[in-house]
């Protein structure tokens, strides 16, 4: 194990490198724009994108569409995670149930979400609901698998301990199973968070009147490529935000792992 100050040096160095690479990215981009001399609707310059960003920010459209997508992503993530952990827990506890359901679960994974997204939009309308469901579906499987793996990995001797103390089911769930499987559960949430963003965009690209996917498509139709760039950056910010939330959760609940 490195000594503390070495560790600090290492993390701050890697942070510095990350920052440097982002800072270098913008001049490089500007350089490519100037050198290639492409029209603005093919490759806008950083300044073009910035101007477009400020404009969209000021007329309120950016905040509006971003928050719509954020709500879809968040609701989908919560819904998918909720169902996946409940079903996953039941499957982890019952081999029979797993045998009955696993063919369906595996088959459902063979269908790409892109293929059924149009169906869902037809059935559920072009509003928020269809996107939330698409997000939930895409989040469901990885969280389910992680829940099963996590709950199955709870050590048998700890069940012995709880049973010798006559713990009830509720206590076993909250004092043993959830904390013991939390590292794996949060790992599932981390994957789910990223996938949920993808789900929302897939849904919005199929048909929507609002959201970043809609903005993306609008920019595309109107040759407003700077707008497309702005939308893409907002998506990155969204994904990073969710990633950050999961990391915070891990810091809070997995202190013991360091």
């Amino acid at each position: 194990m490195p000594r503390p100050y070495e560790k600090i040096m290492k993390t701050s160095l890697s942070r510095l490198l990350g920052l440097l690479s982002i800072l270098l990215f913008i001049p490089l981009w500007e350089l490519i724009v100037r050198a290639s001399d492409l029209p603005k609707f093919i490759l806008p310059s950083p300044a073009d994108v910035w101007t477009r960003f400020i404009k969209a920010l000021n007329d309120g459209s950016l905040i509006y569409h971003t928050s719509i997508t954020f709500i879809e992503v968040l609701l989908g993530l919560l819904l998918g995670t909720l169902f996946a952990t409940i079903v996953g827990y039941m499957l982890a506890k019952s081999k029979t149930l797993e045998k009955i359901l696993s063919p369906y679960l595996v088959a459902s994974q063979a269908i790409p979400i892109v293929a059924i997204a149009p169906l869902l939009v037809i059935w559920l309308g072009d509003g928020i609901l269809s996107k939330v469901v698409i997000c939930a579906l895409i989040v469901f499987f990885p969280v389910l698998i992680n829940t099963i793996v996590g709950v199955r990995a709870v050590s048998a001797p700890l069940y012995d301990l709880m049973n010798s103390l006559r713990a009830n089911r509720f206590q076993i769930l909250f004092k043993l199973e959830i904390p013991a499987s939390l590292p794996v559960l949060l790992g599932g949430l981390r994957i789910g968070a990223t996938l949920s963003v993808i789900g929302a965009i897939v849904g919005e690209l199929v048909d929507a009147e609002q959201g970043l996917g809609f903005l993306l498509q609008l920019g595309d139709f109107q040759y407003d490529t700077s707008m497309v760039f702005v939308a893409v950056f907002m998506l990155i910010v969204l994904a990073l935000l969710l990633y950050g939330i999961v990391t915070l959760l891990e810091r809070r609940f997995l202190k013991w792992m360091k």
Partner: protein
Amino acid sequence: MISKPALAVKDLSVVFDDENNSIHALENISFNIHQQEFVCFLGPSGSGKTTLLRLIANLIKPTFGEVNFMFGHQPKIGMVFQQPNLMTWRTVLENIKLPLELENEDKDIANQKAKDMIELVGLKGFENSYPRDLSGGMAQRVGLSRGLIHDPDLLLLDEPFASLDALTRERMWTELSNIWQAKQKTVIMVTHSINESLFLADRVLVLTQRPGKIKLDMQVDLPRPRDEEIRYTSHFGKLAKKLRDAIE
């Protein structure tokens, strides 16, 4: 002193069935234990000692026979496992507190009891450490504390001192002896050490090689309190010899 019966084990047999073979772990075990009695089980590895404790704790069901308690109520059990068996996500203090939490004990009282226990087993300063930062012996002491904290009627100890150094082990013997005498508990302890069993027990039962049967049921009529010196008495030597011969 006429002591009341605590539990009766009758015609106990355990067969573990795997896919292609079945293991006969215990065969026809019968014994009675009195309340406040300290009983040690000795036996070679694989003779079913852990299995016997798990049966008594009702963690597994016997293939034949039964375990009956005679406390007049469901006895509270404190179990100390062969491995420390700690929750990695809980600190030392939180691990020790667990049995009290499960009884919905008041938080402040639970904290105080756990702190006293930490002091007793010499883990002061490690209250907020996580199990991964403990040595094997320290972890085992946390396990022992957790087994005692809720003042159980029946203590089931599975080689609790195996991973301690000689000095700590002997200190723990004295502590356990004191706790047992002060709190009047019934103790069933599994061990590999003849010295340990003679130092602590009222009675030692020796199990045979698998399938485990009771080979010897011996009263330890050494005076209490017992100290280091007792090991050099001729009676201690005689009892030790008897046990050694039985263990084969």
